[in-house]
């Protein structure tokens, strides 16, 4: 049976991009972009909770949909919707103060749905080569979004972003080639030698040394895009210089999408090499990432960089968690992904508002938020609570599940190290953000008013996180079956 509907979430944003490219920044563009994101969300929900089988394929296995990809489609759609809605306000505000011009607005409106397309493609691809192409394409589509402001700093950030990411991703291509070599030599037909299912099936017969080399390259290569050590260095710069909604998209979802590629590869690696190799690599890379992230959070002075490093921290955390490899661990990982996506998007959207008012992202300039706007302050406060892993939000459930899984997998020592590092991150976040939100206001200004759309986005994001964190089914069933896809 042909499931042509799999390409809907790929096509919809492409159409939106085409519209934006052709008509520029207009009302129809704004609607089209939001609609495209909502379509992704809708198809995700449909694939996840619809009546048909949850595992389907298209184009001979080039694309497929399973619970994991459905979950990520939902996440992309949700974050994308929040971002496209709040982008309207963001761009309008920039246009009104002359921070951007109409052609850049057109570029922005074109690239955002393209970016969504590439992420959807990563999620839906079942072919390692295609995944690689799509991941590299996320760099291409976001390069000019990061450089949207055309300032010296954003140029610097873009350059680093493109060069470091391409470097890392190129290594992943090398890994892909090597894996292809191993796969072909184990008897796969060249046509579907890179099909993930084939890879898993053939894993036992693949050359160990080559596969080890390939897995190593793939891990650090795709790890680049997930912000993992040693290619994490682009992340903070890009996230802090990108327009706030784009930071939200990148921090909230792009990293996680890239990370699920690592998860899918882990299945191949485990099948080919036994659990030790990938597990140890993930532990080392994860703890290194965590250490770096929290170290840079401790005395951070820039709000957006702080949030970026917090994403890095979460990525390190879920890398360590994935080492446990059980279904419960992946449940935790996915809950962290979801919780982080929602909280981070909310905080980035809100920080975009702050930035556009105070024209700075330095924490010292952003003081007294609660005094200036109670609503913004409270939503950031709740976002903060959600971000640091306190209940009743999704991240808490994630951390709890991960802790359970790691104890179960006899990874108590890494768990303790990880939690201590997370504690440093926790303290840094409440210290910096708490001070920013609650501290006295030095700027002399009237109370702020943001557009209702922003508040809608904030409220929706927070309530979704609350719902996911507190109430079980049907969402938790989806998460369970998504976790089962990559679990041993």
């Amino acid at each position, binding site marked *: 049976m042909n499931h042509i509907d799999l390409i809907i979430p790929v096509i919809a944003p492409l159409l939106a991009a085409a519209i934006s490219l052709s008509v520029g920044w207009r009302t129809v563009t704004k609607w089209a972009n939001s609609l495209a994101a909502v379509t992704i969300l809708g198809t995700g929900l449909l694939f996840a909770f619809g009546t048909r089988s949850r595992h389907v394929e298209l184009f001979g296995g080039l694309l497929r949909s399973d619970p994991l990809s459905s979950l990520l489609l939902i996440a992309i759609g949700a974050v994308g919707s929040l971002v496209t809605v709040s982008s309207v306000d963001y761009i309008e505000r920039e246009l009104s103060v002359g921070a951007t011009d109409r052609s850049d607005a057109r570029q922005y409106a074109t690239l955002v749905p393209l970016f969504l397309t590439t992420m959807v493609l990563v999620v839906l691809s079942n072919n390692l080569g295609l995944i690689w192409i799509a991941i590299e394409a996320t760099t291409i589509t976001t390069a000019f979004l990061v450089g949207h402001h055309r300032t010296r700093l954003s140029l610097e950030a873009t350059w680093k972003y493109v060069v470091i990411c391409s470097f890392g991703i190129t290594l992943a291509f090398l890994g892909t080639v090597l894996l292809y070599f191993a796969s072909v030599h184990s008897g796969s037909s060249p046509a579907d030698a890179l099909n993930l299912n084939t890879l898993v099936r053939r894993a036992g017969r693949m050359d160990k040394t080559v596969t080890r080399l390939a897995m190593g390259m793939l891990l650090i290569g795709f790890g680049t895009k997930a912000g993992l050590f040693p290619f994490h260095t682009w992340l903070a710069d890009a996230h802090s210089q990108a327009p706030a909604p784009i930071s939200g998209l990148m921090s909230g979802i792009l990293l996680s999408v890239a990370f699920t590629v690592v998860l899918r590869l882990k299945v191949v690696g485990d099948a080919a090499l036994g659990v030790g190799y990938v597990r140890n690599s993930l532990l080392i890379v994860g703890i290194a990432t965590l250490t770096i992230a929290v170290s840079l959070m401790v005395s*951070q002075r820039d709000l957006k960089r702080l949030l970026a490093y917090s994403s890095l921290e979460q990525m390190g955390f879920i890398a360590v968690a994935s080492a446990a490899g059980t279904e419960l661990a992946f449940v935790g990982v996915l809950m962290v992904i979801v919780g982080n996506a929602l909280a981070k998007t909310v905080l980035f959207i809100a920080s975009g508002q702050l930035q556009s008012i105070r024209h700075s992202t330095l924490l010292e300039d952003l003081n007294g938020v609660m005094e200036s706007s109670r609503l913004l302050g409270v939503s950031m406060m709740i976002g903060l609570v959600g971000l640091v892993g306190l209940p009743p939000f999704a991240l808490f459930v994630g951390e709890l599940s991960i802790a359970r899984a790691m104890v179960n997998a006899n990874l108590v020592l890494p768990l303790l190290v990880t939690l201590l590092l997370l504690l440093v991150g926790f303290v840094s976040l409440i210290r910096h953000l708490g001070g920013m939100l609650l501290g006295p206001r030095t700027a002399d200004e009237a109370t702020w008013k943001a557009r209702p759309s922003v508040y809608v986005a904030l409220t929706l994001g927070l309530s979704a996180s609350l719902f996911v964190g507190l109430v079980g089914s049907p969402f938790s069933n989806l998460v369970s079956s998504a976790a089962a896809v990559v679990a041993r």
Partner: protein
Amino acid sequence: MSASEFTTLLDLVASVLLLSSVIIVWRRDYGAMIKLLAVQGVAVGGIPLVSGIYLKDLQLVVVGMMVILLRGGVLPWVLSRRLADETAGSRETKPLVNTTSALFVTALLVMVGYLVTHPMLRRASTPETRAIPAAFAVILIGVFLLVSRKRALSQGIGFLVMDNGIDAVAFLATLGVPAIIEIGASFDLLLVLAILVILTGRMHAKFKDTDLDALSELRD
């Protein structure tokens, strides 16, 4: 084409690959580097072309032509367009590592390339796979260029050398990944290079220089 001719041709290709990389490390003149890059690109494309002719596989021949067009023509051309606008000089003036050391490192990298690829040779020893160490060394030399050069343009060159190496490995090891992926990857590469070139242009406009050491304002 006989088997021995085929082997000779592949050996030639491998030598060209390796030699061009070494000379790129040696030279500091961008113009020369870009020309060498074009030569290297042709050599990479030569692998599937030669194999295609040898195996009488039309698809491989087409792929080879495409690769030669892209890596030997389009990409160097994009870079040289950039070079034409460069006013800060057409030489890499102050690399992080001086030429002598760089050559020494290159020698080391070639050895590493051989060591790393050793297991692949053990697995299947064909004329193609025997050339893999050279291709692998090219990758490592590309990485070295990327790390040790400070100007924006030479980073682009390093990146391309590395990518050439990977593509060469792909062709040598498996006669190329499936065509759709090869096409997609090449398209990606082209776009990345285009972006880099555009960014170099913007950088030039902003900083009047493309020394990447100037790019260290974003830090904690």
